[in-house]
């Protein structure tokens, strides 16, 4: 019988929760990774390994890996760096991991993408997207928010190993079709509520997902609005209407239905928590034409919780399970595609990422 495994990255280490196919009761293990701050932890279905992007304030950025579902762990940062010298970019953290086609991609701050072809033992710099519109400014210290701008995510194409998309925070999406040799901005149709010197870039893409049922269909939660693409990101249409807020971080696409997509709207000011202290996930089943609030079993009073960029996941069961973790350490699960929810962990550290795997 298969197991459903949640991989939860937190401010104080990685945790794993396991359940059976029913996904009603969960067993928690951890913390792993010596309690290092984890920014994104993922599972590689091809090898069964777990990888966790981490950055210790003392010991720097590294990627932890476990080949045996958390029984043993090692870490390596060999090759994870922009080199020496006063002008070399600083690597402050690895913020997003993607496993695809035998490679692991690591998005980094300052903006760059590293890859490993040996299961995370060694890394090499794939690209800094140098020369792309906006790149002259995104490494300028004067333009940096607290921390740094970076590449928070890489989205692979399922059928073409040389084709993938990278997000640069505050700049937008770039696509490569030749394995990072060249890039094209893919932000046409997005909204910006600020002046743009170059309309190709200057967009704040928080989370980009592809429909597993149709690789031409992309969705994104942006700083300003939720958007859909029907042509693999070449153009975007806003689908925010009907949501309580245009702001949010997390997003997830239904594994079997291209028109079903989930977001967690947040207050876009300083709060960045769910509106009115009432927790909810919102779902569209018609590609954004309408939205429904899903809150059965979620706290509806005094729940001032936020969910970060990688904080929501969806599994591939026929009736998919949906999961999200909050920045205050609560983990919620739905075994019925979001219709009803239960809290499956209450006192975790700040949750930075939730991923789900089905393993034999």
């Amino acid at each position, binding site marked *: 019988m298969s197991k459903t495994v949640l991989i939860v990255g937190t401010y104080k280490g990685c945790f794993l929760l396991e359940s059976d196919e029913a996904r009603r009761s969960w067993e928690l293990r951890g913390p792993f990774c*010596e309690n290092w701050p984890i920014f994104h932890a993922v599972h590689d279905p091809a090898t069964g390994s777990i990888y966790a992007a981490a950055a*210790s*304030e*003392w*010991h*720097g950025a*590294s990627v932890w890996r476990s080949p045996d579902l958390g029984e043993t762990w090692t*870490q*390596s*940062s*060999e090759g994870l*760096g*922009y*080199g*020496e*010298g006063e002008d*070399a970019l*600083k*690597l402050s953290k690895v913020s997003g991991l993607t496993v695809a086609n035998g490679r692991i991609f690591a998005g980094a701050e300052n903006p760059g993408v590293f890859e490993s072809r040996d299961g995370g033992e060694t890394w090499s710099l794939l690209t800094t997207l140098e020369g792309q519109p906006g790149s002259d400014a995104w490494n300028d210290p004067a333009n940096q928010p607290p921390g740094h701008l970076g590449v928070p995510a890489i989205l692979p194409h399922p059928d073409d190993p040389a084709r993938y998309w990278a997000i640069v925070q505050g700049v937008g999406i770039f696509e490569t079709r030749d394995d990072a040799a060249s890039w094209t901005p893919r932000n046409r149709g997005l909204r910006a509520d600020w002046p743009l010197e170059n309309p190709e870039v200057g967009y704040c893409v928080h989370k980009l997902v592809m429909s597993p049922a149709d690789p031409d269909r992309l969705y994104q939660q942006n700083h300003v609005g939720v958007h859909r693409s029907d042509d693999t990101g070449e153009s975007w249409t806003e689908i925010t209407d009907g949501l309580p807020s245009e702001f949010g971080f997390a997003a997830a696409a239904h594994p079997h239905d291209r028109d079903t997509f989930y977001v967690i709207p947040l207050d876009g000011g300083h709060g960045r928590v769910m509106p009115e202290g009432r927790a909810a996930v919102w779902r569209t089943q018609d590609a954004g034409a309408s939205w429904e609030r899903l809150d059965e079993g979620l706290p509806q009073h005094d729940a001032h919780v936020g969910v970060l960029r990688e904080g929501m996941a969806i599994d591939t069961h026929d009736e998919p399970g949906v999961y999200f973790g909050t920045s205050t350490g609560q983990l919620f699960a739905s075994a019925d595609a979001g219709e009803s929810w239960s809290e499956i962990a209450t006192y975790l550290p700040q949750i930075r990422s939730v991923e789900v795997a089905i393993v034999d």
Partner: protein
Amino acid sequence: MAELYLPSTLPPLFPGLPRRLELDATTVAEALDRLDERWPGVRDRLCEPGPGLRTHIHVYVDRERAALDTALEPRSRVDVITAISGG
């Protein structure tokens, strides 16, 4: 031989690495290189790429704040401290 004291956060990352050990080295950098030869990767946990300690790694040689190029005496005590952050 210099006497090196390491923070508790390091041994879990490198099997067999003790909290305290003795090394033959004439500078802090050389001591860390010796350490890295026996436990590959440990230098990267203490130093930025290039000639600098990580921001929140402090090193003291005989109770004086030190840098990578600080000289070691044959009986120097080297304390490596995880400082300030981690809250």
